[in-house]
Every structure is written in C-alpha cells, then in structure tokens.
C-alpha cells in the first residue's frame, strides 16, 4: 500500500525538519521519497505531523501489572468504557491499570507506536510476552531486570566480568529482552530480608557488593556487548529526601567507561524517572528540590540521558522492582500494599498513590519534574515520561505537553492551583521556557528512539519505518502558548487524526480503525554462542538447586513472541 500525506506541517528533528509544510511518502512499511500514481492521498494540510511516538519507559506488561489489576478493581471500574460502535476495538477498562487491550487502544490513539516495558523479571518473562500478545498495535521492547540477580551479584563479587558478559548475553535471549535494566541495585536483594541499602556504596548484607559496583560492571558489559540501548538505571534511594546526592554520584560513577564504537546512541547510561531521585533535605518536612544540581550535571556531561517520571495530579498506582521503597510508602500512607518477591532475581512492590495539587509533597514532586523539563537545555538528553503509571498514567502525556508549551498555563497553576511548595521549595518559578513543537517531537520521538538505539524510528527520513502520527492541530493557527487552549490541545493530542504504523492506518479521526498484533523487539548477541553453552553447562546444577523451576522450562519459547523483531548485535570481541 502506498500513501501520500499531503501538505502536513512536519516536525522531524533528526532530519532537521522544523515545521516545514511538505508531503510524506509511504510505501508498504517504510518512508520513501516518491510513490506511484496509485498512492492514496491523505490531505493533512496544515496539520501537525510527527514521527510515531516512542515511549522508552512505561509499565505495560508482566507480573506487576497483573497484581495491580487483581488487587485494584476500583481502578479498573474507573476506566470502563463500552466498545466502539465500529466493532473494531473492544471495551476499555482501568485508569492507572488499564487492561492489555486498553493499553494498546490508548497509546495508539495518542499517536504512539513504540512503547518500552521497563522491568521484566526473566522468571516471569513468558507472562510479560503473553500480555504483549494481548496489547494491540505497538512495537514493544522489554528491559530485563538484572540489578539484583544472584548470578550477577556473584560475578561482580568475584570480579568475573567475562562470565557476567556471557550471562547477560544468554539471559537476554532467554527472556527475549532488549536491554539491561537496573533497579535499586542490591537494595531489592536486601529486601529479601526486609532491608534496603542506603546509597551507592552501602554493601548488600550477604553478597557484600555495592550498587556502584553493580552499575559499573553492568555498564562495562553493556558496552562490551555493544547493545543498542545503554544500561537503564533506576538509582538507589528512590523517593527519599536527600537522595539527589546518590543520584549525582550514580551519574558520575560510569563517566570513565568507554562507549562501544558501533552504537548509534550518545549515552552510556540512561537514568530513568529522575524526578523521583532529586530531593534535598532529611525528611518530608524539610524536603526541597535537588533538581538544579542534577540538571547542571546533565547539561555539562554527555555520557548520560534521562527521562523525567513527571507527576500528574491523579490517583494512580505506583509499581516498581524497588520493593523496599513501596513498603516505606505503605508505612507512610497506610494504603493497601502489594509485594512480590521473585526468587534469585528481584522483588517488586505496588501501592495506590494519590497525588493532589493541594498536598505539599505531591506538588514538590510535580515541580521537580517540570524543573528538569525546563532546565535540561538539550532536548535530546531528556524524555517525556511519567514512569507510567507511577507518576501518573500515560494518557496524561498530552496534559504535560500542554504545560510545557504554555508559560501562561504553568504560571496560572503556580499562582492559583497548586500548593506553595512549588514556588517556595523549587526553582520552577525562575524558568520561562516554552517548548516548541520541534522540542516536543524531540522529547517524545527522536530523542527516545535514539537513546533506545532504535535507528529505524523516531524520524521520517527515507528508509525509516513508516510510523507517523498526525494531529488535528493547525500548527500555524493554533496558539499552544495560550492557557485557554490547553484543554483543546490535550484533547487533540489524546485523539490523533491519523496514527500510522508500519504503513498501516490504525487510527483515523480519533477512532481505532485497525488492530494489528504488537511486535516483540529483542536483542540477540551473535558471537558468544560457545561461551554461553559452556556457562550454562556449568551453572545448570546451581540453577536447578536455587530456582524452583527447571532450567529447561525457564526461557521464553519462540511462540510467545510472534511477531518479533530480532535485533542482531555482532559481538566484536575484546577491544
């Protein structure tokens, strides 16, 4: 099938196209420079055209979501919407914990085509991939949790970094994972005994290994393997006043590590939801923003990128492999607490969270997130996320964009809506930045694609994947800086005019018109097969002793990942 998107106003930061009125040509599943006369014309004159949205950190599939849905029927009830009349998309259910099909519908309608599931324990990876099969319309890479894995801890403790490299290479194949995720390294293992670690250099009680050692070792391995994405780090001490110092140390602890030469990305570490890691003070009473120091570091250094984890003012659900932090929240709020410890690998926790614009702490968190958006100068280093659903559900991205594009709106919120901690305890009030569409396209498309190492998307150059979103926004006429336009802007971004993925129209005028199976994106390292076999033969007895399922039944069978995109990575050997 061929399409011409006629006369849209195109924002494609990677190719330096900044609001140019032009045609986009699609043939089959790629962007081309010309099409035949049979191509179908879609008139999008003057409308906003961007590459398909790319989310590099969201929680959409796997055990945490299942537990969340199971124990929060009151959240499911909130998002009930009967099926559309066209008989294509079914009912929707859930607000912060949407059902699998609902996740696909809502992301597609927002113009997103790639969404990363940010935390999958290998033991339950089948579950995550099975759920992905129930989410329609997206490309989904999954990040595999390694930051508290016993084999990893052992190799780091014994400084067997070659074994670690082979282990990671093999485990990504077993979990059909895309990249390395580190969550509260050593802390979630300490939670096995109801404990946590305090900062980057506090050794885990049994293994004697620190977060710093884990992050450094896994970053080295990541670069040796040359994985398309860097390590993806949720640093220690999430949500604790005073944690900005740990975050700063974490930023700096990998600076000396050399980036693999064959990768497209610039960073060697991606720090996720930095908003939750940027607090000064000693308690929630004297807490203040630590964003400035972190922003300053990010502005001065090029080896790291971040996403925000913006708070929206909603009743949502927090979920993370940082289980000790969730228990802290339980102690703080008394709301119903869920926890799941996963043998040999990780832990996870959940709790409902109510962020209110009148609650000082919520407002501080909200303002800290916005400080990052305002303060980080290079939009390629920062990505729009809410750590969905932790800061708020992903359907709030358009609302956040409406804040970023209008100082008038933001100022009005500061003056009239939110608690005064936003102005008293953060520097948010000192900024007067307003995002342009080009910058929005960078933080929601081009940037995350580059950071993930997915070079075929996030842009509309010839040869790119034909993932395009068009919104019913007349770029030249519609003034996004006006407060009075915020709500309209949000609604238009929530309901795209067209969402095109792989050259197929999935959304038209805010309605889903086609459902396709989601694509599992995973990384396959070539060149270490023999070493992997030797390693497995060696560790299998240990595996079968400490896991409760057999090694032979552990990996994700191929039929769980149909269709898939296997990203082959050629291991280049030691440099």
């Amino acid at each position: 099938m061929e399409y011409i998107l006629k006369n849209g106003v195109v924002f494609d930061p990677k190719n330096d196209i900044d609001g140019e009125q032009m045609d986009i040509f699609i043939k089959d599943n790629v962007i081309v420079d010309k099409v035949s006369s049979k191509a179908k014309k879609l008139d999008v004159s003057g409308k906003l055209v961007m590459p398909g949205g790319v989310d590099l950190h969201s929680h959409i599939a796997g055990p945490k979501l299942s537990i969340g849905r199971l124990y929060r029927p009151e959240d499911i009830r909130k998002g009930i919407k009967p099926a559309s009349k066209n008989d294509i998309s079914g009912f929707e259910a859930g607000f912060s914990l949407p059902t699998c099909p609902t996740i696909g519908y809502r992301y597609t309608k927002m113009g997103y085509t790639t969404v990363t599931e940010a935390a999958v324990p290998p033991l339950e990876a089948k579950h995550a991939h099975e759920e992905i099969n129930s989410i329609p319309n997206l490309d989904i890479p999954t990040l595999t949790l390694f930051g508290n894995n016993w084999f990893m801890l052992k190799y780091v403790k014994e400084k067997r970094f070659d074994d670690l490299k082979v282990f990671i290479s093999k485990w990504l194949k077993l979990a059909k994972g895309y990249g390395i995720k580190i969550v509260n390294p050593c802390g979630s293992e300490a939670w096995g005994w109801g404990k946590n670690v305090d900062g980057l250099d506090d050794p885990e009680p049994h293994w004697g290994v620190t977060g710093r050692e884990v992050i450094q070792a896994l970053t080295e391995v990541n670069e040796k393997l040359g994985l398309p994405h860097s390590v993806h780090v949720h640093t220690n001490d999430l949500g604790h006043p005073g944690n900005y110092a740990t975050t700063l140390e974490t930023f700096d602890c990998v600076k000396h590590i050399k980036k693999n030469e064959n990768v497209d990305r610039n960073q060697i570490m991606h720090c996720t939801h930095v908003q939750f890691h940027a607090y000064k003070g000693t308690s929630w009473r004297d807490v203040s923003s630590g964003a400035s120091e972190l922003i300053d570091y990010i502005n001065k250094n090029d080896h790291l990128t971040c996403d925000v984890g913006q708070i929206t003012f909603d009743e949502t659900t927090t979920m993370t492999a940082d289980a000790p932090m969730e228990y802290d929240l339980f102690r703080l709020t008394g709301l119903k607490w869920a926890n799941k410890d996963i043998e040999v690998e990780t832990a996870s926790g959940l709790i409902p969270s109510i962020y209110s614009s009148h609650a000082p702490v919520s407002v501080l968190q909200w303002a800290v997130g916005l400080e990052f958006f305002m303060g980080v100068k290079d939009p390629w280093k920062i990505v729009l996320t809410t750590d969905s659903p932790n800061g708020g559900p992903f359907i709030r991205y358009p609302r956040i964009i409406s804040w970023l594009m209008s100082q008038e709106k933001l100022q009005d919120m500061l003056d009239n809506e939110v608690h005064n901690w936003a102005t008293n305890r953060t520097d948010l009030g000192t900024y007067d930045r307003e995002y342009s569409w080009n910058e929005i396209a960078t933080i929601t498309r081009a940037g995350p694609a580059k950071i993930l190492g997915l070079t075929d998307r996030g842009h509309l150059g010839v040869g790119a994947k034909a993932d395009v979103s068009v919104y019913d926004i007349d770029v030249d006429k519609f003034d996004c800086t006006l407060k009075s336009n915020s709500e309209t802007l949000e609604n238009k971004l929530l309901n795209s005019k067209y969402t095109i993925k792989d050259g197929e129209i999935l959304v038209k005028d805010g309605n889903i018109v086609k459902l396709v199976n989601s694509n599992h994106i995973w990384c396959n390292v070539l060149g270490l097969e023999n070493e992997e076999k030797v390693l497995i033969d060696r560790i299998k007895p240990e595996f079968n002793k400490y896991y409760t399922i057999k090694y032979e039944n552990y990996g994700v069978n191929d039929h769980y990942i149909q269709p898939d995109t296997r990203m082959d990575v050629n291991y280049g050997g030691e440099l």
Partner: protein
Amino acid sequence: MKVINLVMTKKSSISLEFDNILPELLFDKSLRQINETIIYRGNKEEPLSHYFDVSIEGECDDAKECAIVIDGDLSRVKRIGFAMTCGKIIANSDVDFHVGACMSGGHIIVNGDAESYAGREMTGGLLEIKGSVKEFCGSSYAGEWRGMSGGQIIVHKNAGKQLAEYMIGGNIHIKGDCDILAGVHMSGGKIQIDGNVNQWFGGQMKKGTIIINGNVEKMLPGFVLEESIYHPLINGKQFIGKYGLYSGDKTVKGKGRIWIKK
C-alpha cells in the same frame, strides 16, 4: 409534582437492570419516551414497556419534583435508584441488588426487603428500607477503601453481614438485628443498631461511631471500656439509659467509639 407509575406486568427470572429509571432522566420525558426507555435483561436491552405499564400523573419542571412509584414483584429488579441524584423513588416490593447504591441525593423508599449492596458507596440522600437488607449495605465496592461517605440509610428490620464496611461518613440506622462484622474497617460516620449484634463488629475500626441498643456477643480484644455513662449525648442526640463507651480497634491504633446499652 409529577408521579411516574410503573406497574409490573411480567416477571422475569433473569434480573432487570434499572439504572436508566431515575427521576433526573425521566422527569421531562413523554409517556412514549418512558415506555421506550431501555432496561437491561441479561445480555439483552429491552424497552421498559415490555415489563411495566407506565402512567404519568401531574407535571414538573425539575427532577426534584419527580417521583417514580414502582409496583409489582421487584425481587428481580436490580439497580433501582443507582447513582440517583434527586427526586423520589418508591418501590412497593422487595428489591434486588444495588438499590440506592452510589446515590448522591433524593429519597428512596423500599416497602420490602433489599438484596445485597443496598446504598453501597452512597454519598448523599436518604435510603429507607422498610424490611431487611442483606450483605454489604452501605459498604464500599470491591477494592475501594472509601465506602459510604454521606447521606442516610434507615433499615426497619435486620441487616446482613459486613454492614457499612469501610464507611467514611453518613448515617445508618438499623432498627432490627445485625449480622457479623458490622462497621468493619469503618473510619467515619455513624451507625445505630437497635437490635442485637452478632460478633466481630467494629473490627479494624479507625474512627466513627457505632451505637448498639440491643445485646452484643463478646467484643473484639482491641476495644477497651473507657467509661459508663447514663443518658449520653452522642453526636448531638440524647440516648436514654446506661451506655458503655468503648474505644478501639487497637490493632489499627483506632479511635473508633462504640456505645453499648447495658
């Protein structure tokens, strides 16, 4: 004042769902429109007229002035007055699940018994049940920790298990007896029970008031007798007789108050 009379002409063993039969939705509708109003029966949608004869008396401009009177055997009619905001509904029969649940205003009178979930998560209005109610009256729906928050429920006979679970506000008056776990997880509001109360009432109670005029089984260990008072004034109302005031539940460091007539 406008009165919409519904008289059941045919009973269905599969429950009918009455969410659309509310004063605010029908007060300005013609007889034909009311006849055509959709009710739900299993997986089918049917017009009201398949099961009810409809007649209208009087006129009104405001839903508050509208009353719906329902006659017939309504023991298989669910969701009467569900999410009602104003006006009046009188059901001259036993009724099925969810009567007055999520209602925020208006007045419902049930001249009979109610199935479970009566007045669940109610925020305002008055729900009066002349017979008994089954389980979860005035409670929260699954998973929700904020149950009934306002309004009033009066039950002239008995209440089933888990009355007012997770209640955070409003008033409930049970004139008869009450089954196990009344006011469990309660954190606000007031329950008065005139009859006997089965065990484990007030479990995990954080705040709120329960007044019991009948006999009780043994109390949970997390409640302590604070004092005994003659003719106490409770929430602005005087009660006659000697009452013991208990506080608890200690298992949740609760400050709930239970008054029990000696």
